[in-house]
């Protein structure tokens, strides 16, 4: 039996997986403790809402929707945008997918989980949310298929499972690597269970790569449709400012911009607090910044076009543009425009794009601006409806603020736990790059 003399490997030893114990020091624990505390507050607020009723929120006639729908639309927009970014990188086989696509998919999943809370709790009787499932009830009643609530249920259900599938298929080879490297028996068994016995055979690799790309391809139209559905929930109503054919397009582009902003934020944040976890250098940050700026310009074009068409409309058909820009709620509109359209202009400067703290600040501004856009759409649309109102604007309650901040913490907590248990980058793809760097591509 021939034996190896000295290992002439064409690969460097796989860089230390980001799960080594010494990588999770004070900064990680501090981040987890703070976010866990806020998540506990979130669940306390949700429990209080379910126990007491929607009256503890700021909702009241005419503001039948407020923070709930704004938060839902915002989170699902970020989830869709992040997933779209990851899928496009996978399909283009872009080199930066190695550093980004795994955690961008996880961000999409985390954001979708945050979004999924709202259709359940905004029902009021959250414990009856299972009525949205079409099961044969003793009453003979079924969910109304023409209701946006039913669309929400199926969209969130399908979205969570589809994105989870995409993420898991990409993760299987790395789970196998973790199984093989684990020293503790329990870790080996847990990783082994989820790795499903992956061996790394050429058949498995060919199928895994093909399946991953197929799922990425199928997710893209789904994301565009899903984001349009979020807008259709408003557009199918009789509220004049919502009954707008341009609303789905606006939501799709703003969702993409907010998703990229979320990815940019996460890249900057992780580079600041846990740089050893993530393979994002200044060049990658630069590229994400460029994409984010591009998405912002797309959003600016659509918003500008919408405003222009509104301005060209006969004055007696709708004066929403005047109301939104100079009425009592104008501060929401102008704040949204400033944060999501003006502040990102700083991304024209390369030095700023490559700075992690600037990435955090600018992406937070973009996301906040788009959140304000969602909020102003809902509030100003309802204030400007068919009913005469007292002219007061929506006033959120402290419970709603806790819920909003709590969902931010929930997203961060999910990502921190993910970073602890699983690799944030596709290790196998990073190693693959090294193979091809050694010589020509195989025939």
């Amino acid at each position, binding site marked *: 039996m*021939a034996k190896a003399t000295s290992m002439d490997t064409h690969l460097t030893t796989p860089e230390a997986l980001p799960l080594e114990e010494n990588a999770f020091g004070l900064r990680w624990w501090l981040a987890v403790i703070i976010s866990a505390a806020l998540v506990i507050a979130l669940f306390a607020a949700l429990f209080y809402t379910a126990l007491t009723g929607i009256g503890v929120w700021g909702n009241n006639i005419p503001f039948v929707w407020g923070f709930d729908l704004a938060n839902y639309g915002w989170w699902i927009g970020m989830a869709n945008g992040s997933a779209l970014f990851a899928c496009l990188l996978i399909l283009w086989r872009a080199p930066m997918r190695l550093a980004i696509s795994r955690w961008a998919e996880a961000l999409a999943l985390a954001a979708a989980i945050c979004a999924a809370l709202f259709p359940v709790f905004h029902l009021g009787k959250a414990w009856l949310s299972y009525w949205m499932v079409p099961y044969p009830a003793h009453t003979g009643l079924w969910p109304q298929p023409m209701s946006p609530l039913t669309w929400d249920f199926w969209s969130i259900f399908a979205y969570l499972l589809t994105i989870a599938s995409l993420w898991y298929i990409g993760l299987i080879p790395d789970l196998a690597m973790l199984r093989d490297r684990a020293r503790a028996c329990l870790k080996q068994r847990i990783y082994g269970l989820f790795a499903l016995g992956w061996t790394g055979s050429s058949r*498995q690799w060919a199928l895994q790569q093909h399946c991953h790309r197929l799922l990425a391809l199928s997710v893209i139209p789904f994301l565009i449709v899903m984001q349009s559905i979020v807008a259709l929930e408003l557009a199918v109503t009789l509220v004049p400012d919502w009954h707008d054919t341009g609303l789905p397009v606006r939501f799709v582009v703003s969702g993409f911009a907010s998703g990229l902003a979320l990815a940019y934020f996460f890249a900057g944040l992780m580079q600041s607090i846990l740089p050893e976890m993530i393979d994002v250098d200044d060049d990658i940050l630069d590229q994400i910044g460029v994409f984010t700026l591009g998405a912002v310009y797309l959003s600016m074009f659509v918003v500008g076009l919408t405003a222009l068409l509104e301005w060209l409309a006969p004055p007696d058909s709708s004066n929403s543009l005047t109301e939104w820009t100079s009425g009592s709620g104008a501060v929401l509109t102008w704040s949204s425009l400033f944060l999501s359209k003006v502040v990102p202009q700083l991304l024209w400067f390369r030095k700023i794009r490559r700075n992690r703290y600037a990435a955090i600040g600018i992406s937070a501004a973009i996301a906040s601006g788009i959140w304000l856009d969602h909020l102003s759409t809902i509030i100003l649309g309802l204030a400007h409806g068919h009913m005469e109102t007292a002219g007061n604007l929506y006033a959120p309650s402290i419970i709603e603020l806790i819920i909003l901040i709590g969902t931010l913490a929930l997203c961060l907590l999910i990502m921190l736990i993910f970073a602890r248990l699983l690799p944030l980058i596709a290790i*196998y793809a990073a190693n693959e790059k090294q193979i091809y760097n050694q010589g020509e591509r195989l025939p």
Partner: protein
Amino acid sequence: MKALFVAEYTDAKAVSHAQDKLHGIGVDFEIYSATPLHLAKAHRRPKRWLSWIMAASVMIGAALSIATQYWTAQISYPLQIGGRGVGWPAYIPSAIALAMFWGALGAMIAFFGFAKLPRLHNPIFDAEAYPRIPGGAILIAVECKDDNAEQAIAFLKSQDGLQSTEFLQAEQNG
């Protein structure tokens, strides 16, 4: 009990050359690596089947969703909404969502089926060279029950870049 002959290499080009030769010999073999090697002409048929299964699942999911919505709203408990007819466009959002879900589910199930997963134990795990795969080793495993196995083994032993070889005994269904 079946036996496997396992040869260890570190050069992907040598493995590609070996793959062509082993296909020519007509022996049953498999290649194990830490990263996808993108070997030409490998596994086109199962990949094509996976695509078609996913496409079929999408169609089935859409059809099931529309049928369910129609049956619940028009047959089982008809909803009379101002005498209006069936709201077919309203069925689109749920249909697309479920079509995508069924497509993903079909692709996953097809992937697991063709990749023969889950299979928590595989004889290759017992190979002495298997732990060296993450470090760059590439293993070629040939089933010894084949008539042409001896020819394949002789070829692999003579191949440049060979690091080590071993024989593994495996369970019949393992």
